[in-house]
């Protein structure tokens, strides 16, 4: 009897796809998702630039040189200089650090807190679920940028405050998505099995539910990365992000940048290209990752 069960079980199990090594997985991703690979390339490039800013930047991003105000783009100053005579290219190179820092920390914090709340909500159910769901509904009543703006205006302009302001609106969005997928994971037979075996609640959640909601979590995380970088730029542009003289891309476009439109259009040009390119990379990557991980969108 026991062997019979085992045999039929073995016959029912489909053959697993061969496990790919990390390098093989990357090559497969690059071949099947060329757009995603292009995005990954941009992200890696941006990380290298941020990491090696001291080496790559030709000038000190903070040093003002009033003899060099509004210098046109040239061999010395590739992207020209701003109204204080600071080298724009160096500022953009250092700005990559702030963009990446805010992007990663804000989306990680928002998605992780939101994801955990989503899992708790789905697993505990009942009153806990009801309470958390209502709370998330309330947070969702505020458009993302507006809530970030309100929080940033209270906390004051500083990089770490921007991270908080951007991550809070992400929480309910992450909670909602992860809760939905945790609800379906919870119904699986293996969860019932470990419950029946007497596993503790934290053990069930951490070892059996969390690993199975990682796919939507990662999709969300990559999707929010680009959005967080954009939000940082927008808040800094509105004067609620990093304060002068921090080389933040959004800040470089704010205030006086437009008043020199005729005299020095490059001040308002290059930081915008940097933001767009960076966010473009993250979005390309995230979009392809979603296509690859979401079975509903896979080509049949």
């Amino acid at each position, binding site marked *: 009897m026991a062997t019979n069960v085992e045999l039929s079980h073995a016959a029912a199990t489909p053959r697993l796809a061969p496990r790919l090594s990390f390098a093989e997985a990357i090559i497969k991703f690059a071949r099947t998702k060329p*757009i995603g690979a292009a995005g990954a390339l941009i992200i890696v490039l941006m990380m290298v630039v941020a990491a090696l800013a001291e080496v790559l930047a030709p000038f000190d991003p903070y040093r003002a040189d009033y003899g060099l105000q509004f210098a046109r783009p040239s061999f010395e100053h590739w992207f020209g200089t701003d109204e204080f005579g600071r080298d724009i290219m160096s500022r953009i190179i250092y700005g990559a650090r702030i963009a990446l820092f805010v992007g990663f920390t804000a989306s990680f914090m928002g998605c992780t807190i939101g994801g955990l709340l989503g899992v708790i909500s789905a697993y505990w159910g009942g009153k806990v679920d009801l309470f958390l769901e209502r709370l998330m509904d309330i947070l969702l*009543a505020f*458009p993302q*940028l507006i809530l970030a*703006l*309100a929080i940033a205006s209270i906390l004051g302009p500083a990089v770490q405050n921007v991270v908080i302001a951007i991550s809070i609106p992400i929480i309910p969005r992450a909670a909602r998505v992860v809760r939905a997928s945790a609800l379906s994971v919870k119904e699986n037979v293996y969860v019932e099995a470990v419950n029946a075996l007497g596993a503790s609640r934290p053990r069930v959640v951490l070892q059996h539910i969390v690993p199975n909601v990682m796919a939507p979590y990662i999709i969300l995380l990559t999707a929010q990365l680009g959005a967080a970088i954009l939000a940082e730029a927008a808040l800094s542009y509105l004067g609620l992000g990093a304060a002068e003289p921090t080389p933040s891309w959004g800040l470089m476009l704010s205030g006086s940048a437009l008043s020199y439109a005729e005299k020095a259009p490059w001040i308002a040009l290059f930081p915008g290209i940097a933001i767009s390119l960076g966010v473009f990379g993250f979005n390309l990557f995230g979009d392809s990752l979603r296509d690859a991980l979401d079975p509903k*969108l896979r080509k049949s």
Partner: protein
Amino acid sequence: MRTYIAKRLLLIIPTLLGAATLVFLIMRVIPGDVALLILGGDQGQIDQKQLDAMRRQLGLDQPLLVQFGTWLWGVVRFDFGKSLWTGQPVTEELLIRLPLSLQLAFMATMVSVMISIPLGMLAAVRQDSWVDYLIRVISIGGLAIPGFWVGILCILFLVIFFGWGPPLEFTPLWVNPWANFQIMVWPVLTVGYRYAAVTTRMTRSTVLEVLREDYIRTAWAKGLQGRAVVIRHALKNSMLPVITLIGTEFAFLIGGLVVTETVFTLNGVGRFVVDAVAHRDYPVVQALIFLIAFSFVIVNLLVDLTYAWFDPRIRYR
């Protein structure tokens, strides 16, 4: 349907109440002393009398519960007190700016619908072909370019080639349509194109999902031609999510208004928010944040109702 409407209406009450509470908490409890912030904050040489007067003006000398009651009573009557900057009632200040923002929002939505629906459909029907790649790259690109920078580029272009200056006065549509058009065309395109990038992506994925449905397979199996399947079966059934989407992307629209009105120095609701934040005009910030949440909730409610109207499966669940 009636039960569904009643149920949905009842559900928004706790949400709105919660939103009003949250706005109140953000503004009063977390920041410490709002009066101190308004008077210039951290300099440390503020007259105690001035501080007390400001506290009294803001009602901060009252117990927290009383303050909360006053705020809620004001919310119910749409009375949000006076702006600290202009001394005018917040509601009046808002009504002056509302037509501009509504016009901008409406026109931008039109622009985005006209661009995004055909493109999104095309990308879905030709999934993983070069057309799909091109449309996806363009729409992802559109999402990546910050709205305010598109505005800045517009202005750079107009200033350098046409010697453009920011409009000194806003002309409403019904006074002089041509003058109004000249002011609005660039902001509308700036907001609309970005909005289109969002909706194109969403249209693509909803059409993709619909194309996987059983009834589409049946349509193919019946031997219908490609065009009949796509237009009669897929497009019709994916329009519903797209309608929803136009509603839910309202949030994007508001964010777009905030930055675009600031770039083009248009005196709309979005810029009102930014100015109020800059002036530390907390009664205005508080009122606007709540009203934006309020309109967001109402728009979502309307979208849900439209959805239920068209798709009976939802209202019977």
